[in-house]
């Protein structure tokens, strides 16, 4: 066999391998989606969305308290995390000449790579040890996960705004800070909101930090200084239990959670198509 044929064969083999890798990588995704939909759909009924967690052995019941709790927790986390992330992103993008910004950007990336369980332990050490297991502790942990994500996506969003817009505004005598707030920010608002939504999707799925800052809660919201039910954490508790009714709830909760997260991801992708790609959180 001459060299040429050998090279062609190698080329074909590599092509097959490369596409196989893509195929193999996607199998778990499709398997997860398929199973979650298949097993989750049977649990969904009106009760599912209106009743709280059932006792062991009780049939029926639902995840209403978990949905309430999750909304409250990620809402609170956003209140803490979004402003900080937004402002940090503005600083990094608009004042990037400062030496400081290089260092901050670097450590921002580092912060985003810290395991979420450690962030939970941090919140445990700082807050739970004094206030106790609470929504506040949980929201604090989740906000720390949000901050680097929003910082980075805001910075990228602002960087996409053409310099010409800023220059035009300054030429008109508008001070830099006002340009940023009124003009640049609103030009980039689609991308910024995209970043915020994606980070919301991310923390809605976090269960490790919630586990060590709140633990399992079977009631409705009972105050900010108490724990509250959480959808992602419930999946963990129910999935590792031996009770069929709870395992079924785990699949149902997973379906709701996946629809929420994928919904955000797809919607975001849809709204920013053609404008720029890679809205990564």
């Amino acid at each position, binding site marked *: 066999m001459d060299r040429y044929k050998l090279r062609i064969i190698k080329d074909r083999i590599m092509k097959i391998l490369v596409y196989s890798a893509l195929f193999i990588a996607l199998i778990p995704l499709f398997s997860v989606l398929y199973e979650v939909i298949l097993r989750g759909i049977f649990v969904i009924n009106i009760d599912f969305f209106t009743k709280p967690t059932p006792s062991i052995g009780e049939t029926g019941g639902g995840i209403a308290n978990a949905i309430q709790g999750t909304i409250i927790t990620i*809402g609170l986390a956003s209140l803490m995390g979004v402003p900080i992330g937004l402002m940090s992103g503005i600083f990094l993008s608009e004042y990037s000449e400062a030496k400081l910004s290089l260092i901050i950007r670097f450590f921002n990336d580092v912060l985003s790579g810290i395991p979420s369980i450690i962030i939970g332990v941090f919140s445990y050490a700082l807050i739970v040890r004094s206030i106790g297991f609470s929504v506040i502790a949980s929201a604090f942990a989740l906000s720390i996960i949000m901050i680097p994500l929003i910082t980075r996506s805001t910075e990228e969003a602002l960087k996409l705004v053409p310099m010409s817009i800023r220059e035009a505004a300054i030429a008109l005598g508008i001070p830099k800070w006002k340009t940023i707030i*009124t003009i640049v920010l*609103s030009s980039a608002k689609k991308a910024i909101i995209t970043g915020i939504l994606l980070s919301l999707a991310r923390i809605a799925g976090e269960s490790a930090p919630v586990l060590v800052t709140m633990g399992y809660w079977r009631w409705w*919201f*009972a105050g900010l200084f108490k724990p509250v039910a959480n959808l992602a954490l419930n999946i963990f508790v129910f999935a590792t239990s*031996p*009770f069929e009714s709870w395992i079924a709830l785990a699949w149902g909760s997973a379906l709701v959670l996946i629809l929420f997260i994928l919904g955000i991801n797809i919607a975001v992708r849809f709204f920013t198509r053609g404008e720029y790609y890679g809205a990564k959180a």
Partner: protein
Amino acid sequence: MKIIYKITILVIMITIIVISMLAYPYISSQKAITLNGAGATFPFPLIDKWAAEYHKIKPNIQVNYQGIGSGGGIKAHIEKTVYFAASDAPLTDEQFVKAPNTLHIPITIGGIVPVYNIPGISKGLKFTGEILADIFLGKINKWNDPKLAAINPDINLPNHEIIVIHRSDGSGTTFIWTSYLSDISQEWKEKVGRSTSVNWPTGLGGKGNDGVTALVQQNPYSIGYVEFTFAKKSNLAYGYVQNAAGEFIEPNLESFSKAAAFVAINLPKGDEKWSDFSIVDSLVNNKQAIGVYPITSFSYILIYKELNVLPNIDEATAKALVDFLWWAIHDGQNYAAELYYVPLPSNVIIHNEETLQMITYNGQKLCKG
């Protein structure tokens, strides 16, 4: 217009949060009281049921019970980080010294059963104590071992390795199980011993009764030991165990009751030490005890006699706690049977009433009686 855009979104978010917060049954009249407890998973289904039912009667009281195992519960009780603890193992002498004036209140009776997951074999596999000890020692490691086959002649046991499942956390259930094995097998007593946490010669660990149940469910050819409720509620096959009289007894409410009845006459006083009290020890050599299931146990609530030793507890909460326990030993017993626990016999209830009447807050007795 542009800034308003951002502000609007912020306002919407806040509104959603506020609406969510208001969308739950608000107890505005009385301050909501949370009774924090922790401990054994053995009585967890029952306590969880009590929490739900009691909340219906007294909507401002939330019983928040964490099933972390008897070991964790006892530690929490010693550290005073909970209002009440639950444990299937009574305090040892050392623990009793660390937590003086602890009251033991038996709240229910249950049995620990060997559960297994053998395709094609349903409940009723017969075991003797020695065989169980050998399985958990790793000496018997195939299901079709001759010793097991000999007492189950009409069952076709597969030629497959036994996967042993035990507890990974500190557990009163483990304490009772290993007490039984120590009483039966000298080798077990020397090699492993009895405790809430032992060095298991073999097997996988699950957290809590629920963790072990889940592992047995997920692993074919495995065996574990769990409180009876868990076996029933998850449709696991469970075995019959031989008692001292030689009978292979099916675990059920009747055989648990009979076992408890044998010892219920001689309970220690609520404020004494209970470290020597064990249904398993009393029955293991008692050939006269007919129809008893040998691995039966009380489950206890541990609580301090004087409640002001607990940090952050006020009189209202202390009173609420005692009222809840009073309800638990009376009306609460009505929920026991449907969860496969034995309702407390009346002499035990009366005994508990005396114990509850010992509880004080700042010296004042809390129990109306």
